[in-house]
């Protein structure tokens, strides 16, 4: 009994607790409108699972990919605004490559297309990383440039057309089933687990967080920030590439101006809902997964409730505002009542009056921009 209570208390203290609550609330809302909403059916013809929950899981796959990458980038104190555009680039590469291939069942062509798309997305991610580290630009601006340029690159690849293609193995990625589950969700889970293992079971995660807390200090303790930051941006680019493949595979068309449009905002939102601080220095995979699932649930719920899909942003805004307020208030409460549990958080916690006393690292409070200044100054002091 005590164990359960302690577990519950730990859960409430998790930053993504309110994200889970929000998902349950949304599902409950759908349940009121349609009592069979949560039912999972088995398709009698194929034995595959079907139902609204599976639709949500399927829709969450691309968001999961980009938000995992975004969480890593944000942990280094950066931000990646280019993921949506890189999705379009990856999609454009796939469709443009598969379009002239007449053999609609060629598995080799599918792998070649996927490989090419990931390669180009990775290269563009590397450009982001080089701009941030070697050139020393702010991540916001570097990836903003890539966001504008990436959309242009996608349009140049397809000459401005919305290219379509026919390839069964490629279509299977987003529409097929494996052991009765949608392939796209299984791939997404596999990728998330793989990234989580690589990052959390090696020193990489620690190094990423160290860079996010203080880049100069991390370098002095023997970490090479440059290589790690570049590889994090490459990872984010390639994950965006996977998301782009998911997005075009479901409809076998790339819409160069709409594919992945503004999804970088959804990814940032998912990461923030998961409790990752935009100031960098820490990240939570569990929270990011919860955030991505919440976004997917919200998207599906708005459509299910019959509200115009164009109005979805208003609901997202409500979620952000409520969650930000809850997170900051809850943390302020915890801080007041459990002094030992005080942690550095994105929202700083607490009302303005208490902020002055509570801040451990004041310069980090205002987000990546100010931190960049601090880092720059520190860098120059050390030179």
């Amino acid at each position, binding site marked *: 009994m005590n164990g359960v209570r302690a577990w519950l208390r730990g859960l409430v203290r998790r930053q993504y607790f309110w994200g889970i609550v929000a998902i349950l609330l949304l599902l409950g809302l759908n349940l009121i409108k349609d009592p069979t909403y949560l039912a999972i059916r088995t398709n009698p013809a194929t034995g595959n699972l079907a139902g609204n929950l599976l639709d949500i899981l399927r829709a969450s796959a691309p968001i999961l990919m980009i938000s995992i990458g975004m969480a890593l980038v944000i942990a280094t104190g950066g931000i990646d605004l280019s993921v949506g555009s890189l999705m379009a680039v990856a999609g454009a590469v796939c469709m443009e490559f598969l379009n002239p291939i007449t053999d609609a069942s060629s598995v080799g062509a599918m792998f070649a297309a996927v490989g090419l798309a990931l390669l180009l997305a990775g290269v563009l991610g590397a450009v982001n990383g080089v701009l941030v580290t070697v050139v020393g630009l702010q991540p916001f601006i570097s990836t903003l*440039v890539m966001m504008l340029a990436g959309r242009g690159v996608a349009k140049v690849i397809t000459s*401005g057309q919305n290219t379509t293609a026919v390839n069964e193995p490629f279509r299977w990625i987003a529409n097929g089933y494996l052991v009765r589950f949608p392939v796209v969700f299984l791939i997404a889970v596999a990728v998330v687990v793989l990234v989580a293992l690589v990052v959390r079971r090696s020193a990489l995660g620690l190094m990423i967080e160290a860079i996010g807390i203080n880049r100069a200090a991390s370098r002095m303790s023997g970490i090479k920030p440059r290589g790690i930051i570049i590889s994090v941006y490459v990872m984010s680019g390639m994950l965006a590439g996977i998301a782009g493949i998911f997005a075009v595979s479901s409809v076998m068309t790339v819409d160069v101006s709409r594919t992945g449009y503004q999804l970088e905002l959804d990814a940032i939102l998912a990461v923030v809902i998961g409790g990752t601080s935009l100031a960098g220095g820490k990240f939570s995979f569990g929270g990011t997964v919860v955030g991505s699932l919440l976004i997917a649930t919200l998207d599906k719920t708005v459509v299910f409730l019959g509200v115009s899909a164009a109005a979805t942003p*208003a609901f997202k*805004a409500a979620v952000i505002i409520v969650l930000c307020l809850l997170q900051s208030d809850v943390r302020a409460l915890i801080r007041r009542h459990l002094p030992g549990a005080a942690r550095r958080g*994105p929202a700083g916690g607490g009302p303005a009056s208490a902020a002055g006393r509570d801040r451990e690292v004041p310069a980090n409070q205002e987000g990546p921009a100010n931190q960049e200044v601090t880092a720059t100054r520190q860098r120059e002091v050390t030179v």
Partner: protein
Amino acid sequence: MSTLSTEPAARPAWLDRLGHAWRTRRAALPTLAAVIIFIGMVIYGEAVYGRILQYNTISNLFVNNAHLIIIAVGMTFVILMGGIDLSVGAVIAFSSVAGVMLVNAGWNPWLVMVLMVAMGGGFGALSGVLIQYSRVQPFIATLATMFLARGLASMLSTVPERLPEDSPVRLVHYNIKLIDGPRVNDLIVTPGVIIAALVVAGAVFTLHRTQFGRTIYAIGGSEQSAQLMGLRVARTKAWAYVISGSLAGLAAVVYTSRLGAAQNITGIGWELDAIAATVIGGTLLTGGAGYVLGSVVGALVLGLMTVLITRDGSIPPEATTIITGGILLVFVLLQRAVVGRKRA
């Protein structure tokens, strides 16, 4: 100051002042560079395509970019503090859709125009309160406002809402001929351009001659220091977002009157244009340094670029965003070089 230095006249006393400015105000260099590049673009355009330095092209440059100048001014306030406002494009969409619908519903058009500005201010106040009193990061708070405004605009209407032909709102786009040139080559201004000019003048005065403006620069330099100096940091930060929001509302009035219609997808990506104009104009994204007039030049650079691309015709339209990105990159690299050297 930076615009003065482009005058051909070279008086010794004036040169001294320039030399002094050069030594003390290197942060103004990116702004100066923006002015030089703008002049370079004008000369290049005149030499290669012609018909740039004539009345109607110049008039159109200002008339078509009045709204961008207005939101770039608002963005300058926010970025000078080290903040960011992603909501301006969406606020314009909400403000203009709501405004046109109110006019069509029979409300007094003059009152509606005031209301449109007030609606913008309301969204700005929401961002400001979230940022200052709930300690949400500016990026996230204005992202929320952006989603909210865009979503509400879409709830109001998803089709273009037209203004009546005789609506007084259209008067903001009334062409006033200053110089009647041959054929269509007239120098014209619209009340929209005059509003933009007044906004710029007001912003320059506020930022450089009032306590509020100096506090904004101080916050951008170091918020902790500003706080310790006893400046009204919280109030100033919240008000800067209200200003940015209100100016977005004003831009909605100017843009709607020019177009005569409003839609929920109006202004998608304009926040990026405004940020680009501000950055090109030499304002540091980290805050603390920059000029409103620089942002105006930045907005004109973006506007002139569109004109040049249209005149050229050989540049594929799909490459336009690559060029915008490239120009932004060049300017930021320039800033980086200049400011980096100053600090070293």
